[in-house]
């Protein structure tokens, strides 16, 4: 589905990622965990094309998309729910969702958008209630659902999510993670960046640990959950608990 090879990326003269590689298989849920400033968001933005990599390759469904402009990648099915949600604050919930389907409508599939919209409303019933409200007036959790809904309207094959649980109450976080599992059952591949490592690993098939722009660890869910460094740094266990 997605293969990233030796990606070096950053902003102007600031190098953030140093030769990062990863892959996501079809139907997989892969998580990336790491401390603040490690470069997780930079990595996802580089995959979307909004940050231009210095070096390396991004391959999507067998095709090299390193040179494909960001907006075209959405049409290919590679879609990001950005960090901080970034819903269009003065556009209505419905307009936000319609814009998610921008390329679908541009490609003359406008009739199917209504159907997709119904699917999103079934997934997040609260959005139907808020349909006419401005995006900026929603609560944090509702905005996260809107951001996910907007991304789904683009009909992704790979859905990337950057810290979807940021600033949300545990109940809301739980429901977002439940959605992630539902989406995978519907056939989506998911690449998830999370601070909430325990939660993220609980839904993941595999995971990566990124620190200061480098992948320091990779493994299956069990491998990561049982890894001493991961337990200490990301799962909040102290030395004595690990050494027992």
């Amino acid at each position, binding site marked *: 589905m997605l293969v990233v090879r030796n990606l070096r990326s950053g902003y*102007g003269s600031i190098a953030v990622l140093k030769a990062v590689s990863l892959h996501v298989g079809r139907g997989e849920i892969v998580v990336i965990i790491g401390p603040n400033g490690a470069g997780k968001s930079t990595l996802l933005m580089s995959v*979307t094309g*909004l940050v231009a990599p210095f070096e390396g390759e991004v391959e999507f469904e067998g095709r090299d998309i390193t040179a494909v*402009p*960001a*907006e*075209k990648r*959405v*049409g290919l099915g590679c*879609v*990001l729910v*950005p960090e901080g949600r*970034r*819903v*269009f*604050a*003065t*556009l209505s919930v419905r*307009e936000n969702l*319609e*814009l*998610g389907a*921008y*390329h679908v*409508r*541009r490609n003359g599939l406008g009739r199917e958008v209504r159907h997709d919209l119904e699917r999103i409303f079934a997934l997040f019933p609260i959005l139907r209630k808020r349909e006419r409200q401005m995006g*900026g007036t929603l609560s944090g959790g509702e905005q996260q659902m809107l951001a996910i809904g*907007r*991304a789904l309207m*683009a009909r992704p094959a790979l859905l990337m999510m950057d810290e979807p649980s940021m600033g949300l109450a545990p109940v809301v976080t739980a429901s977002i993670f439940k959605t992630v599992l539902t989406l995978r059952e519907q056939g989506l591949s998911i690449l998830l960046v999370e601070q909430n490592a325990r939660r993220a690993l609980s839904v993941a098939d595999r995971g990566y640990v990124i620190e200061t722009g480098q992948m320091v660890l990779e493994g299956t869910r069990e491998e990561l959950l049982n890894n001493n460094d991961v337990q200490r740094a990301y799962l909040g266990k102290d030395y004595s608990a690990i050494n027992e």
Partner: protein
Amino acid sequence: MTGIVTIFQYIISGLAQGSIYAVVAIGFNIIYNSTGIINFAQGEFVVLGAMVSITFSAIFPLWAAIAMGIAVASLYGALVEIVFVKYARAFSPLRAICLASIVFILVSASGLFSFLHPVLSILFGLAVALPFGAGGEFLLLRFQKEQNVLQLIIITIGVSILTRETMKHVWGKDVFALRYFTGTAITTISVGGVYISPQLLWVLGTVTLVVAGLYLFYKYTLVGKAMRAVSLDRKAAQLCGINARLLVTLSFILSAAIGALAGAVTSPQTSTDYKMGSSFAINGFTVAILGGLGNSFAAALAGLLLGVLESFTTAIVPSSYKEVVVIIIMLLILFFKPSGLFGKREERTLKEF
């Protein structure tokens, strides 16, 4: 009775003048919303549209001539965006030329070398301007890491000057006017003792249509909504698959087209010459600020308001002080209500910078 009629007469002529300010301000807003730039070449779009319409109206029916004026101005708008905004950001010689043209105009306006033969004075002007342009560009590059809005605004001022000088060579310094759409200069309709030129109805009708059309465009069309999305959060819009670059070019085209249309409908009454653009730009900018940057409906109201104010001002003080009044109004507004007469504070803070 006559007192009231006179007042109405002032209001009417104010509305005529205010209409063009309104449309120029709307043009400012369209581009500001999608890029954050104040495009000071907006006035030249208006003049270019009018000039081309006037030229073609000699051979073609009026509507066809105006359509051509709009088409030419739209193409020019696209060209300006693609060459100067898209590439000049990356290509510093173009920016240097823009800066140099600003200095050149200042030098020639100051008449520093006017005692010399015209050709020599131009050469001396260039000799002063080019190093300034290059030097200014060097400083901009040196001290500004990021491409920023100030740089782009300087570019649009340069484009405005280059356009104006080019139009001077094509059409000369004469004053032209498009023929009246209905009747002639002396045709009037009397409404309760107030005399109205049918052209004014054309102008007001056009402004109304433009405002209503834009409202519908931004509210109901997919591209219009996408343009709003780009102005709110460009990156998020790109993440929706929206080609933000293309829509920015489109906003220049739209803004030039609307400006050209306004230039054509007002030309019969206000006449057109190559250098009118700068006063349109100043007044249009005042109006955009007056209404609250970014709000086209408010810009339309503010434009008409400023037109009427100006019209009364000329009744009281000599018309050469008109500009002073305009600037005082603008400063007062900036001082007391920085978000504009109709501006909402929240909307401003939602903007990225």
